[in-house]
């Protein structure tokens, strides 16, 4: 790995460890190899959002050309958000693309992602289904995002209605995550989800 990338990541890693966000458990960073190319990030769901109380794990890959090119980041934890793919965890965020600047750090990236959880941009979506629900039925979106946070990110808000409907589909032989995706996509209308799954 290029010297400059390693030198930067070493310093940034220390910077994050010492930061007050870590002290408040808002963000976390962990090295996965000795060559500073792979890291694991973690951000806490921001308060007063459907993600509150959840812990979201991120995969961070540092390219050879860092910091002249942005790190490659994606969500490992499944999440329901207009700018994050519910399937792959891919993120649509300008600073991870053409708005990247060489002075930005992993800390700025983690904090920006946290900000993205607070303020979605449905007009620049990564997941079209989620974005449509966000715009057409905000309450339904919040409920779904909260449910996903509960199931995948350890959030505290249990929604027994959702759990029941998923149980019904599981009883019909549908795999759990597949059932959740179908119900989430059809505003938790059991009939329409069933129809889609069996068509």
């Amino acid at each position, binding site marked *: 790995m290029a010297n400059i990338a390693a030198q930067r990541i070493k310093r940034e890693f220390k910077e994050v460890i010492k930061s007050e966000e870590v002290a408040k458990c808002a963000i976390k960073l962990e090295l996965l190899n000795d060559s500073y190319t792979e890291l694991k990030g973690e951000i806490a769901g921001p308060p007063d959002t459907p993600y509150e109380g959840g812990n979201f794990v991120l995969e961070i890959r540092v390219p050879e050309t860092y*910091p002249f090119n942005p790190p490659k980041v994606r969500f490992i934890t499944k999440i329901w958000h207009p700018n994050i793919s519910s399937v792959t965890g891919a993120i649509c965020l300008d600073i991870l693309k053409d708005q990247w*600047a060489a002075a930005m750090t992993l800390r700025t990236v983690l904090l920006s992602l946290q900000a993205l959880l607070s303020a979605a941009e449905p007009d620049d979506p990564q997941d079209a289904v989620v974005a449509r629900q966000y715009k057409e039925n905000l309450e339904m979106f919040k409920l779904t995002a909260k449910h996903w946070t509960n199931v995948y990110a350890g959030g505290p808000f249990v929604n027994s209605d959702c759990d029941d409907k998923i149980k019904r589909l599981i009883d019909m032989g549908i795999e759990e995550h597949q059932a959740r995706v179908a119900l989430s996509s059809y505003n938790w209308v059991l009939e329409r989800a069933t129809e889609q799954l069996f068509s």
Partner: protein
Amino acid sequence: MGFELNRFQGEVDEELVCPICSGVLEDPIQAPICEHAFCKSCITEWISRQPTCPVDRQIVTSPQLRQVPRIIRNLLSRLCITCDNAQYGCTRVLKLDALAAHLEECEHNPKRPLPCEQGCGLIIPKDELKDHNCIKELRALIHTQQQKLNEFQQEFTEQRFLLAEQRREMQLLKDFMRAMRISNPSMRAIADAMERDEVLRWSNSLQRARVTRWGGMISTPDEILQRMIKRTLTEMGCPPHILDDLMENCHERRWPPGLCSLETRQNNRRQYENYICKRVPGKQAVLVLSCDNPHMGEDMMVEPGLVMIFAHGIE
């Protein structure tokens, strides 16, 4: 790329750290308006990707980059840094502005080039000296040079072959043109021009001659003398198409009116000095080509030129 922070003694001000590489500024340079400072190599690399300040994304192009203020340069030069070769045993701690000079001569530099003192005289990086074997090194050297020599030889042979091929093709072309010129006027013009050029090139390759005694001129050379001169002209590379004409013009019967009899020669002898003559090596003879002598009057010159044979007096 800047200097690693942990090489410095004591705290380093955040102002002196490059926001791109996070090292201490090396060869610092700053953006014009926001005055953010970077290592020159770091910001150049970034601007080659997009013309913005990496901190605040204001538009910045390479020519707009400025020197940093003297105060920053002074602060930098006063920082104390360990030698690059600290891990190889150098314990020196230097002011940053003295580092480059020290590195030039740091004896702990593992790559410092040293001459071998066991006989081969090759210059070798210090860290390779202990495993160095003169005979092995020299053999390797001979081997690579032999290889190069072989390559050159092969290339030389190829070039020679190519040259022969081209010469042959050229000859074919010339023959072709000669055949064509008879029936085609524009081809004749081209061929004439080519032949003129050839004579000119040949003439330029010859050395000037000086006739010291024009009285030694032989106006009626015998056959043997003529054959000898002709052979020499061929060896000199005389273009074949003028060879015979030139040789014809070595006898007064073919000379121009101003030279053709003893009487006219007497009258015109003052003009001889104006001739531009070329040497015929090893012979008491000179070439007076018409392309070298456009300044001479018509009655003193014939195409394509004259051969003058002397009894003596040629330098």
